[in-house]
């Protein structure tokens, strides 16, 4: 495994940190306060997770007044995602299910 992948895996291995990252992916840019409200952990803990995500290049911060806004940096995931093999995996599974169905069907 490459060093870049190693950092990403380590960073995303923590379920709370991964949940924060997923939320940013799904819902777009947010403040620490908004993230804390749904994270189930304290604000300092969320800030710490965001710091680790930032070090891995997975989030970017944008200060605005007294607030800091965080957003996901999806490009940072590219070392992990071999896009075509992921999609091929989806279809391979569908082909498996299709073959199972064909075995059950009448001629």
């Amino acid at each position, binding site marked *: 495994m490459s060093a870049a992948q190693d950092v990403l895996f380590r960073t*995303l291995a923590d379920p709370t940190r991964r949940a924060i990252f*997923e939320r940013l992916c799904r819902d777009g840019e947010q403040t620490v306060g908004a993230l804390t409200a749904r994270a189930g952990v304290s604000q300092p803990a969320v800030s710490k997770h965001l710091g680790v995500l930032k070090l891995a290049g997975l989030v970017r911060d944008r200060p605005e007044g007294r607030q800091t806004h965080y957003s996901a940096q*999806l490009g940072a995931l590219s070392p992990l*995602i071999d*896009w075509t093999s992921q999609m*091929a995996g989806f279809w391979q599974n569908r082909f498996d*299910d*299709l*073959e199972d169905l064909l075995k059950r069907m009448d*001629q």
Partner: protein
Amino acid sequence: MNTATETRSVVVEREIPHPPEKIWRALTQPHLIEEWLMKNDFKPVVGHNFNLRGEWGGVLDCEVLAVEPNKKLTYTWNFKHEQAAYNLSSVVAWTLTPTRTGTLLRMEQSGFRPDQPQAYAGAKAGWQEFFAKLEQMLERGE
């Protein structure tokens, strides 16, 4: 590399020990499609608009583009999302070629852009699959 216009495609091909006519039924009858793909209101009629509804709650917008019974089936495979990165416009083309022992079934999905890796299996499902795989890899040890 022109990343704005370049698109990628995925091809899955498999020899299946069943005749094309039977596979065609599995590809075109809604109650059969549901068993291996997703809930749907498919009709094998060019121009027919239908939805594929995933278990994760996502809905794909599709339109039948080509129908050649027992030979070829093509439809669009689109996913709308307010965030551009999740938007997906692609085309799924099935080709059935008879062989001595059954059928060579080929699926080509084309139209993805390389800047939207998260769209590969439809937003949330894709993410769940991705993170499930991530967890599996972590469990196996780095």
